Structures are given as C-alpha cells and as structure tokens.
C-alpha cells in the first residue's frame, strides 16, 4: 500500500520520540535492520514473509513498552511484539517491538514451583539454573535458544512435554495494555508477589493474551510471565512402545495418559523417527533419507522400523515408576504392541532413543552440546517443511491420519508424512502435527506445499467438523473466527474495541491506520 505523507510525518515524529525515550541505539529505521524482521523466528521454511516493519525498537523495561504503546496511539501506528520462538505472522506492523533485551529472570520459586520471566529469557539460560534447584520446565518442538515466555505463555503452551498433565503452563501474566496501562492477572493483580491464577473474585483472563502473537488481534504485550516448573524426582522412566498401526499407538498413549501414568505420552510415526535418527548423526545419511523420502514411492516403514513409536514420560518415587513401567508393558500388550527393550532400541534407533532419554528421562536437553542442535539440523534439511496442526479427539485423529495418508498420496503424489501426536489435558484430546516436506530452495515447491497445507486445512474443516485446525499465519486464521465462530469473533472484536480503540495492535491484513479530522484512528478490516 502506498504510504501517505501523513504516515511518513507521523513515523518520523515517532522515530524521534522513541529515540529520545529509549535511546538512539534501541530504535532503528535502517531498511537492512528492518529486513531481518520479515520472517518469523521458527522452523517453518514456508512461513510467509512480508514487507517488514517500518521501525524496530528494543525496549529494556516495562516503562519503555508503555511509552512505545502510548506513542503508537498518539501517532496512530500499529505495534507488534516478538521474542524468540513466537510464531508471528509476516511482520508488517509499523513498529516492531523486539522483546529480547527484556531478559531478566525475576524469580525462581521452587517452593511454589514456578518462575517469573521476561520475554527475552531463553531456555538455555534458564534450564541450568532450574536443574541446580532440582527442577525442570516444559520443553517442546523448539531450540533451546527460544523463549519460554514466547512458547509457553504467549502461544498457550499446547506443544510441550508436560501437556499430558496440563497444557497451560502459565500461572500469571504481566501485560502492557494497548492504551499503555499495566495489567497483572490472577493473584499478582492484587499486588501479591505470589503468582497464581487461583484468585477468588478475580476472573481468569490469561487466555485473552495467550494467543495474541498468532492470527488473532493483539490485546496487549506480555512483559512478564509466571510459568510452572516441575520437580525432578528420585526416579524417572521412559518406556518406548512399538506399534504396527497409528491407531494402536494412539490408543496406547491415550490410555496411559488417562490413567495418569505420566506427564506426557507421545506418538511418533516412523518417518519422523527415521528423520530424527539421521539428523542427529548429522551425516550424509540424513540428506539421502530426505531425498529418498521426497522422491521414492514407498508406503511401508523404512529399514524395519515400527509404523509408530509411543513413549511415555514418568517422574516419581522409585516404586511408583517401577509400577508405571509394568503397567505400560501390560497396556501395550493388551493393545497389540510392545514396550521395546534396550537392545532393540540400541540396534534400530540408537540416536533417536538417546535424544528422547536426554530430554524426557534425564530432563537435560542441553547435555550434549552439538546434538542438542537437532532443531538447527531441522532447519538445514531442505524439506524443512511447513507444519499443519490439528487438535481433536483421538478417535477423530485416527480417522484423519488414515484419510490423510490416502488423500495426500492420491492427490499430491506425496509419500507418508512425518508427524507426531501429543496427548493433552489428561488425555481428553490430542494434538496431531504434520510436517510437510518442502524443498525450501525451490520456489515452486514452496508454493505447492503452502497451497497443499491450506488445502489440507480446508479439507479437514469440510470433512472433520470436530477437529480444530490450530494456528494460522495469515489473516484468514482470524477471519474464520470472525465469520464462523459462535460469538467468539464478535466478542473478541468488542473486547478489542474497548481495550484498543485505535487498533494499534497489529492484525495481519488490516489497512494502515490513518487519523481522521478529530485525530481518532480510522481503520478498515
């Protein structure tokens, strides 16, 4: 869109005032600096990228964030906060707020099992400190350079290794509202230094801000989050089951999760297992496998692997863990699979097994310096892939997997896809993530896979009304909420109008703000 003279002068005034407030070194309008914010920080090779922001700012304090928001309102400019790991849509906001320099660990409270963090704190800084205290924190599909606030608080934490117990790992938030005022949720809202959502008489409004960095309207900027930490107990276990069908593996995971046997039970299909096995080697095997996966016609598990693996993460007293291991063996047998022995795992998927143990049994994801870089290997694989997320009941996901494999193979001539399933909330449902292979260097292929992902999502919407297609990198994600939800879009829009009358909170696809004759912002959806 052409930039108006009014916009340029408002932007220039904002730049000057921001530089005076934050210091010149924390504000940039350099196109080269701005261009590095055109993409999200996440391993989504096909994530769309935009024009980039007009200004980038790096606040160091909450007061800085408040000042940025007040200025955005004054000059009618949109804002978008990011920190490492937030899968943000294309960054076309006027002012992009890079939160990574707000990186204080405010509090580690082992007594009540939570930490209070600013958005710039990364996993790799936090985990060693927690281990010293005998604790761990939920980790998921992201590298250790990412931010727990970005991944667990802002994204509502649906994708991590404690989701079998409880998905939302956030106990409280501090938010700079889009009028510049400050809000704390739960007990912290009453001035307490104890952060808990369980505050009598105070409504639980965490969710309003938890998805703010995805495709829904930004309702506020998270500046602190209280996040659960989990004690490392005297014993731990990680039984790994092998199953010849997806349905059996999912049933196993659901049963052990519903029986409260572990923190998390997760299913990996053979493609993802083989892929991980070869990334960790970091060898040419990996590239050979990926190439093979993209080109060969095969539908059976590779090199004698099981169709699906299901592992379950336990912590507890020794007797409890021993008992749970036996129960897992029994459940696996009853379902028609088996818990694999060390010898078999060592002979078939040694690297994958080692990495699972490191992360989910020893809770020490930083233990092996180079191998922890699995995610940057992922980045390096040419079919780094787009992702499609589906949440639903396990029965529906089993039907979906079967239909996908047939539909994709028939329609797109694609091989079986890598995917995993995580149980959430005591096994009340699960999250199925497909990782679509894409040659990131091939523009045609990138477009094809992007289109395929969109078509997959539409197809699921049409054929599986009870499955929720999660996330979304485009305006379309929220459009659907506005047009199809039972009251949710309307409510969110009304809340937004009340909390953010100028609509300075960035929403992809919205037109640029322009002040009317009275100086009020006018925007069109």
């Amino acid at each position, binding site marked *: 869109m052409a930039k108006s003279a009014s916009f340029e002068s408002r932007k220039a005034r904002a730049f000057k005032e921001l530089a005076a407030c934050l210091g010149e070194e924390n504000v940039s309008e350099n196109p*080269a600096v701005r261009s590095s*914010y*055109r993409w*999200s*920080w996440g391993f989504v090779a096909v994530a769309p990228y935009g024009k980039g922001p007009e200004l980038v700012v790096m606040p160091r304090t909450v007061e800085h964030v408040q000042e940025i928001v007040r200025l955005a309102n004054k000059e009618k400019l949109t804002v978008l906060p990011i920190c490492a790991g937030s899968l943000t849509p294309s960054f076309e906001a006027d002012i992009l707020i890079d939160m990574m320099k707000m990186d204080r660990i405010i509090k580690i409270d082992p007594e009540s099992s939570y930490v209070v963090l600013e958005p710039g704190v990364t996993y790799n800084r936090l985990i060693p400190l927690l281990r010293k205290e005998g604790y761990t924190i939920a980790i998921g599909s992201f590298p250790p350079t990412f931010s727990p606030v970005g991944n667990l608080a802002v994204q509502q934490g649906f994708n991590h290794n404690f989701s079998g117990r409880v998905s939302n790992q956030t106990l409280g938030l501090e938010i700079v509202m889009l009028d510049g005022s400050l809000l704390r949720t739960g007990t912290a809202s009453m001035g307490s230094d104890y952060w808990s959502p369980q505050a009598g008489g105070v409504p639980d409004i965490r969710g309003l801000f938890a998805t703010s960095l995805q495709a829904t309207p930004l309702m506020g900027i998270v500046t602190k989050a209280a996040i659960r930490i989990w004690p490392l107990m005297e014993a731990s276990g990680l039984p790994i089951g092998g199953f010849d069908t997806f349905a059996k593996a999912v049933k196993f995971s659901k049963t052990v999760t519903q029986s409260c046997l572990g923190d998390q039970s997760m299913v990996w299909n053979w493609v993802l297992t083989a892929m991980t096995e070869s990334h960790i080697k970091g060898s040419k095997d990996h590239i050979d496998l990926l190439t093979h996966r993209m080109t060969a016609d095969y539908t059976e598990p590779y090199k004698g692997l099981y169709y699906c693996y299901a592992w379950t993460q336990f912590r507890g007293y020794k007797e409890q863990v021993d008992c749970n291991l036996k129960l897992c063996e029994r459940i696996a047998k009853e379902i028609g699979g088996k818990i694999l022995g060390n010898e078999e795992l060592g002979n078939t998927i040694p690297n994958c097994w080692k990495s699972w143990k490191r992360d989910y049994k020893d809770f020490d994801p930083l233990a092996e310096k180079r191998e922890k870089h699995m995610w940057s290997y992922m980045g390096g694989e040419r079919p780094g892939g787009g992702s499609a997320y589906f949440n639903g009941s396990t029965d529906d996901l089993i039907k979906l997997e079967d239909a996908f494999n047939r539909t994709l193979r028939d329609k797109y001539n694609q091989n079986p896809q890598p995917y995993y399933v995580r149980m959430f909330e005591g096994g009340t449902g699960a999250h199925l993530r497909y990782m679509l292979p894409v040659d990131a260097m091939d523009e045609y292929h990138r477009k094809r896979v992007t289109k395929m992902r969109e078509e997959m999502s539409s197809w699921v919407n049409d054929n599986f009304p009870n499955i929720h297609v999660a996330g979304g990198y485009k305006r379309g994600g929220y459009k659907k909420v506005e047009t199809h939800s039972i009251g949710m879009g309307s409510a969110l829009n009304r809340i937004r109008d009340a909390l953010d009358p100028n609509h300075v909170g960035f929403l992809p696809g919205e037109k640029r703000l322009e002040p009317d004759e009275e100086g009020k912002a006018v925007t069109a959806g």
Partner: protein
Amino acid sequence: MATETFLDQWVTSLYTCLRCRECVTSNAEYKTVCPIQERYGFFSYSAGGMIAIARSLYDGHLNWGSEVASVLYTCTMCRACASQCGNIYYLTNEYFNVPYLVEKMREELVNRGKVPPPVRDYLKSVELYGNPYQKPRSKRAKWAEALGIPSYSGQEFLFYVGDVGSFDEIGMKIARAVSFLLNRNGVSMGILGNEEISDGNEVKALGESGLFEIIAEQNIQTFKKLGVKKIVTLSPHGYNSFKNEYGKKGGDFEVIHYTHLLMKLIEEKKVVLPELKTCVTYHDPCYLGRHNQEYEVPRKILKSIPGLELIEMGFSKEEAFCCGGGGGNFFTSMLESGVNSPSRIRVRQAKDTGAEVLAVACPLCAKMLYDAVKDEELDGKLKVKDIAEIILNKEV
C-alpha cells in the same frame, strides 16, 4: 524475484537458515557469543540476520546501499557463529559459512562503490602508503631501532611484523618483545624493514579483493625475490593471510605464528622462563583460534611459566568472545566505542575471573583490550600483556 547475482551460489543458506539464533549463543555459557549481537541487539546483527539481509537483497526487497553497508561492516568475521550453527548444510556446504558470505557481500558493496567512509579511507591508505597509518615506508622499521634486528637476507625465518606491529605504540612494544626473545635465543631471522607492506588480511575481509590480489602478489614477489622459505608472523591476522590465502596465489611458504616458535624454544629449554606469581587469563585471538584452530600452544606457553596460574574465562577457545578488532574493525571502528563494545565486554569477562593479567597473542587484540581496560577504569587492576611480554617480564 531473484536476479542473477553471486548470491545464486548462496541460495541454500539463504533459504534453509531458520533464524533459530543458535548462531549467537554460546554453548558453554548460554550467553551471546556474537560480538555484534551483544553490541547492538537487533537481529540483523547476527549470522541469521546477515542471511536475512542477503535474502532480502536476493529477492529484491532491499537495495545495495549505505544502510546495508552500515550493518555488514560491523561484522568482525570472528566466526563465533560458525562454531555454534548446527545446520547440517553448514557441515556439508562451504556456502553456509556466514563470515564468507559477509565478505562476498562486502565485495559487492566495494564493486558498487557503496563502502562507508572509514572503510574507503582505510583501503585508500593501504593502497597509497602500503599501510593504513599513512606513514612513509622509511618509518616502517623504526620500532626495531637499537634492537639490532637485521634485514632479511637469507636467514631461516622472515619475521613479518605487520602494520600494527610497525606503527602502533602497543604493537611496537610487542614486536620489540617478540623479536628480542627470538633474537636472544638464537633464532636466525630478519625483517623486511622498508620493503614490508600490509599483509592484506583486513583488505580482503573488507571486500576489496582486487587490492588484496595486488598486495598478495607484491608480497609474494618480494618474499620470493629474497628467497624466503619460512615466515614467522607477529600477528595472527598476517598468519591467517599468508597461511590460507597466499598459497592459492603461488605463495607457498611455511608460515608459523610466533607462539609456535616460542613453544619450540621453550621445549628445547632455550628460553629462560621467569618465576611469576600471578594469575593470568588468556584471550584467544579469532584469527589464531577459530580461523586456524590453534588454541593450545599459547596456553602451553603460559602454563610452562613457573608460578603462573592460568584461569580460563567462561568464553574461551572456540567460544571465545571476540575483542571487536577483526574483519577490519580495528581500523575502521565501524563497531563504535561504548560500554557494550566487544573489547569492554571482553575485559569485564577477564576481570570476573580474578586474573591480574589478560594475556594476548595478537597486537590488534592487545590494543583493543588495552584501551578497553582504560575505559573500564581498571588501570592497575588488570594488565593487558602479550605472551612474549609476560615471558620477558620487562619492557624492551
């Protein structure tokens, strides 16, 4: 979309970097190891950010101009990013070397005449004077006056001093200490004196490949004319250039850094080591360490000194934090000074070890850190000394 440019060769790295930020983070300390990321903070000032800039240039979103130059010329080429990135293509593809990409992008800026004034001035000085200090060649060997260092005339080693050793006050002190030690212990060596010119390492890093060609050819001709077979360098920058670049241009010499020769003399018990009851921490120069994988020899030398206690900084060896002087920044000061300048951060890291001496093996690092000690007001609390100066334990 993409135009036919040199960036076509880099398309793998442009499209497979996922901006995971592993490149800026130390494995040992889980803190920022990239000096420009620590200095500026914006994502553009990192390997991932440089790749994002390259991709924006490649897809036509960004133009080659002064704004791009102002970011690219801050990179110190320290290769800390390369020691962190775990991308499989990095391990298998030379076009995943971000410092190399930055150098190539700088070349493009030079070709388009878009270099920042300090870079332009540096390159012009080297071209006109053979050194960046704009000093006449006749002053090149002034540092060696009264030391009795002979001109090179067929001795076993050519002692290549370089620009900083020849003209900078700190560099000259180190050059005197090294040459005194070598000379006193019977090493057969000579210097080029008025015939010496820049080694070209920084010229190449700044993207002036044409001038580098000329410098390299001139140096190779001079060395060959004089019958040089072995070169011992004062600076790791010259060492890097002679060892890794001159060979490709027909300059096939045996090149060593002075610490290698010193170690040999110590092993042969030719050097008398003083007893020093002191705590020392060692700063790895990037061009000796990450560029040439030499981490142990300087440490062995220090450990061989009786009484000396060597304490490691958290950021050391392949994870050493750069002093900020690499990639031409020593001369161009594109990184600017300030409390977050890499040299001041490095000095604070050294101070945190409790060491009294910050040992170096590079005249550029020495100068950067010496100035930073002053800026940090640590005079008298932390001394910056070259390894040769520590061994000598006195001014030459």
